């Protein structure tokens, strides 16, 4: 009984105690508050970076996008099913028939290994997820991680405020989202993370001089090399940076001291081992070697003699090695893609296969605006702040920003490499500006508060008077500027979300359009065709198509293709281009020699889908003609004009591609009030409506005619 009576009395007092003590315990120190806010913000950024990339899953479904990701998905599937050594030794006979492709030696395995490792970890933790889901979500997951790395990088370069802004900017920057939405399972997804991580660790190593950081940086670089061909950017940027520091020679003293030399040396050696010969490297190695020798010899004259001997020796040995290497083919000359980076017009004149890829085109101003939005204006401002507070780290970021901006201007897809730099430098601008402005605004608020806190009216009046006299304009101006900055940043957020949802979340396998009544119409023709191939053709059938669709046919159709998106063999692609641009009987001989059973063409004439094979046809002619001079581009043009209607060139009207695209199209009425055979993609009535096929027959055409598959007839009995 005593217990029951005593209990009701105690809780109120306890509760009161609690209430009294609560504010005290909850009242955190400023530092803890700041930490809490910082961690919470980073957590939110982490989640934001992930979920903003899920538009594609919401709009469409959890699927792999576009072209290359299908190859990556197929190889990841193979890796998880057969294990690493099988994967490494995989000879893929399903592509590049009859040559095949050595998969293990010709890909960057970083992405597949990462996805497979994530898959294994999840299964170890007893989450029975499908490998497809892992692949779909790999890119958003790494985007989140990139945001975190951007925070640390920003913190290292400037301060934690700039870090947070950088993380927030990069989390939603369209330039990065374009390559990392859910389903975009491509090398770039993890490579940008690796790139930024390597740079961060490198700057950290430079700043601290710690051996462990430089080792970590080397491993980050190793991961980057395993993931993406863009690693050449790092390997050239880092020595360039070191050269700049050497020339500048300010703030570089600690690199010269013994222990830092070792730290840098480890990084250099590891890099030199991985890379094979970038000229700047050799220069650097020589520089450090000479520095060391100078230390040893201690005598200027002796050193000069030594220098003379070694330089002549090194030059002659190098020249001989280079000559022998070139002659024996051991040192491969630079790839065409690389040349086109240095000279944007190079590919256009020399290598049509590189120029034909849309993502290799020089960047238009509009796409800079589209991908960077306000960052484009913040970038120069950030550069200004960096130059104002020049340190080893800011020099690095500035160099990274400037070089990557150049590359972004040369090739559309390299906007991706520039994005982290642009975000970082812009973040410095935003952070520095906002910080300065808030200092102005806050200083007043504080004095106001302390003044009012005193209580006595006399002091209040005096203090107020002092403040009011001290530049009222400055306060209002700062407030206005702050508001402007927040307006700009919120516009940026809105723009990014809009771009992500409208432009970058389409899987491009499934096409969506608006119907006449505003409803969403889905064209799932690609998968219809690929699944038909998978189910209704013999398992060893060889499919010929333009190389764009090679990866998709092998991954979704599970059939052997002649050429695919790897484009490693120009002659093979040119052969296909030649077949497509020849007359049917000539093409038949080519197809027979390649054992082709089915031919697949993409045709947008019914739906108005413009990126179809007829619009790509000139590239086929060019690439085919580049190897086989029988194919001449002018034969397909009329007065330099490319057309498919009545006025088209006779060779155009009778080549295989034209016939396969428009077979029986002349009987179809596509649009009300237009004659039959009206091509909606090009807006003309076709020129050859009476197409007869002699050596091929229509095997399948999808619902909206987007994909047409033809069967190559067996040879006639003689």
């Amino acid at each position, binding site marked *: 009984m005593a217990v029951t009576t005593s209990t009701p009395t105690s809780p109120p007092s306890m509760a009161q105690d609690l209430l009294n003590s609560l504010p005290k315990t909850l009242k955190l120190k*400023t530092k803890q508050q700041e930490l809490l806010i910082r961690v919470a913000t980073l957590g939110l950024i982490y989640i934001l970076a992930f979920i903003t990339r899920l538009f594609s899953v919401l709009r469409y*479904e959890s699927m792999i996008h576009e072209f290359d990701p299908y190859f990556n998905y197929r190889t990841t599937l193979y890796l998880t099913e057969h294990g690493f050594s099988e994967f490494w030794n995989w000879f893929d006979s399903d592509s590049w028939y009859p040559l095949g492709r050595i998969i293990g030696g010709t890909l960057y395995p970083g992405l597949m290994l990462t996805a497979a490792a994530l898959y294994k970890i999840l299964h170890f933790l007893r989450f*029975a997820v499908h490998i497809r889901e892992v692949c779909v979500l790999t890119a958003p997951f790494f985007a989140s991680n990139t945001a975190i790395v951007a925070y640390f990088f920003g913190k290292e370069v400037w301060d934690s405020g700039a870090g947070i802004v950088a993380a927030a900017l990069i989390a939603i920057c369209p330039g990065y989202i374009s390559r990392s939405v859910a389903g975009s399972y491509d090398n770039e997804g993890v490579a940008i993370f690796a790139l930024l991580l390597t740079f961060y660790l490198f700057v950290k190593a430079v700043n601290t001089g710690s051996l462990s950081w430089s080792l970590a940086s080397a491993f980050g670089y190793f991961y980057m090399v395993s993931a993406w061909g863009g690693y050449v950017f790092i390997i050239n940027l880092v020595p360039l940076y070191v050269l700049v520091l050497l020339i500048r020679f300010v703030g570089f003293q600690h690199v010269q001291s013994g222990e830092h030399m070792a730290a840098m040396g480890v990084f250099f050696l590891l890099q030199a081992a991985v890379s094979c010969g970038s000229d700047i490297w050799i220069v650097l190695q020589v520089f450090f070697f000479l520095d060391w020798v100078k230390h040893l010899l201690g005598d200027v004259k002796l050193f000069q003699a030594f220098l003379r001997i070694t330089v002549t020796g090194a030059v002659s040995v190098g020249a001989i090695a280079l000559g022998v290497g070139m002659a024996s083919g051991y040192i491969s000359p630079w790839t065409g893609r690389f040349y086109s980076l240095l000279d944007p017009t190079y590919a256009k004149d020399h290598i049509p296969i590189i120029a034909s890829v849309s993502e290799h085109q020089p960047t238009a101003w509009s796409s800079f605006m589209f991908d960077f939005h306000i960052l484009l204006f913040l970038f120069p401002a950030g550069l200004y702040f960096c130059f104002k507070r020049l340190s080893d780290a800011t020099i690095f970021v500035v160099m990274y920003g400037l070089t990557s901006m150049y590359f972004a201007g040369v090739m559309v897809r390299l906007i991706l490499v520039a994005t982290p730099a642009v975000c970082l430098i812009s973040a410095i601008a935003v952070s520095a500006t906002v910080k300065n402005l808030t200092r102005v605004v806050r200083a007043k608020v504080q004095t106001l508060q302390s003044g009012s806190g005193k209580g006595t009216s006399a*002091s209040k009046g005096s203090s107020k008077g002092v403040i009011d006299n001290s530049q009222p304009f400055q306060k209002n101006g700062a407030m206005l500027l702050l508001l402007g900055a927040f307006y700009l940043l919120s516009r940026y957020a809105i723009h990014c979300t809009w771009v992500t949802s409208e432009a970058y979340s389409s899987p491009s396998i499934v096409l969506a359009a608006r119907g006449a009544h505003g409803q969403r119409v889905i064209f799932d023709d690609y*998968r219809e065709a690929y699944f*038909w191939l998978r189910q*209704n053709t013999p398992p060893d059938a060889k499919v010929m198509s333009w190389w764009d669709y090679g990866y998709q046919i092998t991954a979704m159709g599970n059939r052997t293709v002649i050429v695919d998106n790897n484009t490693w063999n120009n002659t093979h692609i040119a052969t296909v281009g030649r077949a497509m641009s020849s007359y049917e009987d000539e093409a038949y001989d080519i197809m027979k020699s390649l054992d082709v059973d089915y031919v697949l063409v993409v045709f947008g004439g019914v739906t108005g889908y413009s990126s179809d094979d007829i619009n790509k046809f000139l590239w086929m002619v060019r690439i085919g003609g580049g190897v086989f001079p029988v194919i001449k581009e002018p034969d397909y043009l009329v007065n330099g004009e490319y057309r498919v209607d009545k006025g088209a060139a006779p060779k155009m009207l009778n080549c295989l591609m034209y016939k396969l695209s428009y077979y029986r199209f002349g*009987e*179809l009425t596509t649009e009300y009030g237009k004659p039959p055979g009206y091509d909606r993609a090009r807006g003309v009535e076709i020129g050859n409506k009476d197409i007869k096929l002699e050596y091929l027959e229509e095997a399948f*055409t999808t619902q909206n005619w987007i994909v047409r598959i033809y069967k190559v007839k067996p040879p006639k009995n003689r």
Partner: protein
Amino acid sequence: MKLNLFSFLFTFTILSSHVLSISDLILTKVDRRIDLSTQIVRTTTTLKVENAGSDIVSEILLPFPENHAIHLAYLSATLNEGRGKAKPSSGAGLPYDEVVSPKDFPNSLKVYSVTLPKGLGKGDSLTLDVLAVFTHILQPFPEKITQADIQLLLFQETAHYLTPYPVKVQSLVVKLPDARIESYTKLEKTKLQGSELKYGPYENLPRFSYLPMVIHFENNQPFAVAKELVREIEISHWGNVQITEHYNLVHGGAQSKGEFSRLDYQARPYVRGASAFRRLVAKLPPRAHSVYYRDEIGNISTSNLWGDSKKTELEIEPRYPIFGGWKTAFTIGYGLPLQDFLFGIDGKRFLNISFGSPINELVIDTLIVKVVLPEGSKDISPSVPFPVKQSHETKFSHLDIAGRPVVVLEKNNAVPEHNEHFQVYYKFNRLSMLREPLMLIFGFFFLFVASIVYMHADLSISKTSASYLAKIQWEEVQATIRQVHTIISRCLTTHDKLEASLRDLSRTGDIQGCKATRKSVDSSLKELTKELKSPVAFLQSSPQAAQILPKVEEVIAKERDLQERLMAKHSTVVDCYEKKLGGREIENRVASHQQKITALRQEIDDLMDLIDEI
């Protein structure tokens, strides 16, 4: 001797077959109805049986020619006790068995023996309904057709009922689809009425009378054949039965040849593509939810779903129309409420759910039903109304450690008639349901504990290195500075107390109370000053604190100054009160102190912020 043995064997077989077959049954009336309107052929036979012999008969033999018997998917015999023919048979089907064909039977017969519930006495009669369902029995002819052709089928049967018993009267009705009939065998008493073909009645036929007939007719019904169907039924005691069905479908009719023209197909789909099927309808149980329809390469968007309280209807369209010989594969999945299908009896639970596919008129060559029970289920025993192949396996799903027990039931040649309910009995402890949430909770708990341990543990390898020692020292300095900080802030709060007492004084005029407060404040301030001594001494001795030390000392000095000023102000005010001076006078006297105090306080606050940021 050899001959003797042979004759012995012969008599033995005769004897044994005698036991099986010879009985003096007479079929007084046989009505047969064959339904050819879909790809599944159903023959319904009503037998009126009479025992003309003297022995009691308990078995009736049903022979089928071998070429039909291999296509037999389902057989059921029921006693028809009611009058109405159309009425569904009362009670369950009678048990039957396949038996060795007796020697006096013609060759190539497969014989099933139906056991009657009670023997048929002399002169007694009964009516038996026999339903036999055949698949793949309709032969496409021609075997290969083009897109424009219609699909023609051949069906062979006997016009006379094949039976080991003499038949008095019999008739046969063949139901054909509403379409062209190419040809049929014309026998005596053959009549074609609309889409029904009638043979008979024929009277007084002897045993095993056989009269072949062939029908050649058009049938464009979907010939959907599932080469393999794997149905996975997964029970979750959290309230869901998840069903996943993997179909491997083929068009089982006439093979298509030549080219497929989309133009022709889309212009006149029912003429140029008559034999193809483009949609299937699945009747799902009511309250089915989360329905999906996909295949290996992704979601298939062409499907529709309707539902009411009795059923859910799912119309699915494969990615492309299925012509003869074309294949497709897809998966449909849906969830069902647990309480509709899971019941409990004597401490055991049992799942009661239909066996076959929900898709209409589908022939399934191999049907594999997998029932995935929750992890930790015991004493599992399935009960299926027809013979199936049983096996067990284990499935690993989310958060499974030992894996979930799976009952695998395999049935060849399944038809919609196999959509009977079957049961799986098992025991399951309700507490096991909590295992997975607990695993998750503990997982996260250990994660947090690990991170706490990591935050607090000292993981550096070398405990003697200079940088490590410097770090330790710096931490100590930081701790000391924090100590100083708290002490000074305590001082400041005591100052506030003093100010508060002054305000009280102006309100109440309690001079004594004010003095007492002042005394206590004085003593506590002295104590705090004492406390400050040791941390300051530490900071002075530590080289790491050299940078911060001036600031700290400045704060302390300022604080002391402030203290003195406050005391002076306090004593002035108290004095004034004792002398009963006016408010204005007091303010005048205090003003100089007050200004200093405000300035000092501001400076100290700024310095404190500075120190705090370290």
